[in-house]
């Protein structure tokens, strides 16, 4: 019995059944209630799965602390932060049940005044590294990269308000590149991406693509 249950065909069949139900609803409007429930499952399952990651992360950092390996103190900070945030949040009220206001206020402080600026700081590297990309990556190694860089410069002058002040032509030229060339090419990319992702789905349905089960892909067995 357990041998049958262990077969990899079962998760693939579950996957196939779930996605076919959703698609049947999409194409014909049959069983909308069923598909809504199943979509709701994904979120619940995802939240249940947090424990898997947390176990892995705690094992990693607790071992570091235990062994006093390099930078172990930071691991201790990390673990402390998890508990401080979690417990102050839980004490402050959870699931619609209200709790201690002071704890809630402290939790809000951690979120709004520590985490929010910190994560904005981390995110702002996307601005800084754009210049790294211009500085390191924007070298015309071949004709096609040359096209890309010329268009990039035109569009930058189109986007910034100062560009139009330098030469009014940057406005219409950039808009044309954006609206015509870009839209046309993007349609081609979009069709390809759509087809490609459906192909992965078909391969997974046929049992060729099994990476999501933790197995290397191979022929159907």
């Amino acid at each position: 019995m357990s041998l049958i249950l262990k077969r990899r065909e079962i998760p693939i069949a579950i996957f196939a059944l779930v996605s076919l139900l959703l698609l049947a609803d999409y194409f014909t409007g049959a069983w909308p209630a069923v598909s809504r429930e199943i979509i709701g499952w994904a979120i619940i399952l995802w939240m249940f799965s947090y424990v898997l990651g947390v176990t892995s992360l705690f094992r990693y950092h607790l071992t570091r602390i235990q062994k006093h390996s390099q930078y172990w103190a930071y691991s201790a900070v990390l673990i402390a932060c998890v508990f401080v945030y979690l417990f102050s949040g839980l004490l402050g009220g959870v699931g619609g049940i209200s709790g201690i206001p002071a704890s809630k206020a402290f939790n809000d402080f951690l979120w709004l005044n520590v985490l929010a600026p910190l994560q904005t700081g981390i995110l702002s590297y996307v601005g800084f590294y754009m210049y790294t990309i211009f500085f390191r990556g924007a070298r015309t190694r071949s004709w096609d990269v040359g096209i890309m860089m010329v268009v990039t410069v035109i569009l930058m002058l189109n986007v910034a308000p100062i560009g139009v002040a330098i030469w009014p032509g940057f406005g219409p030229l950039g808009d044309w590149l954006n609206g015509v060339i870009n839209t046309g090419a993007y349609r081609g990319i979009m069709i390809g991406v759509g087809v490609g992702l459906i192909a992965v789905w078909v391969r997974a349905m046929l049992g060729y693509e099994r990476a999501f089960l933790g197995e290397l892909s191979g022929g159907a067995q």
Partner: protein
Amino acid sequence: MYLKGFELFVFAALCVLIYIGINLAKRKPPYVRVFPALEHIDEAVGRAAEMGRPVHYSTGVGGLHDEWAPVTTAGLAIMGEVAKACGKYSVPMRYSTVLAYLVPIAEDLIKFGYDTAGHVELYNPDMVVYAGEEQRALMSAMMGYIMREKPAVNMLFGATKYETINFLGTGAIVGCMQFGGTPRLYYLPVMLATCDYCLLGEEVYAAGAAVTREPSQLGSIKGIDYFKLLVVGLMMISLALALAGSNLWGQLVKM
């Protein structure tokens, strides 16, 4: 109840053509364009072995529970191959993710990869690093990791968002050999500028199949190409109708 007839036709045509492609390939494997990004994985991992530095891999913030499931699957498939190469050259590897359910999957894949290459003893569960469920946490962990450990190879295949710039920007500064691939349009130029080898757009999906080098998987790529010819045909029909001044196409699509 309703029936989206035209969409169903397009969808069914694609599925059937892929199936035909796979079956034809079992008799005679098709020609498939070489993807430089896949061809150079072995060489890059070999370089990492020479330098004695690890290989870093990530699939970005896209997961299986959302609409990025297919590309994440393709990214995981490529990771399996990278793990094999790492096993072959005895190079430590590190996979970073923000999705907890990917942790066991990635552990299995990496272990399997090292096992296939005959070096299962090198596998260590710490090779999979979970950074919480948020993108910014992943960004900060990755930037710190790359700056500290300076991996020789930095790879990013999957549904990537803003973290693309942080990963590949840090990697470019440190001087990693970089590989990237995403179907998301506005990270493509970033990858093109910072990666040594990258997969553009749908190449990621195709690469997930091509990396196995199996006739049946390659056949699915052939099926996709058949479908694209059909797409061009449909576009020509639409164009002809537009030139004739008819709005039949609009009605056909709504069928």
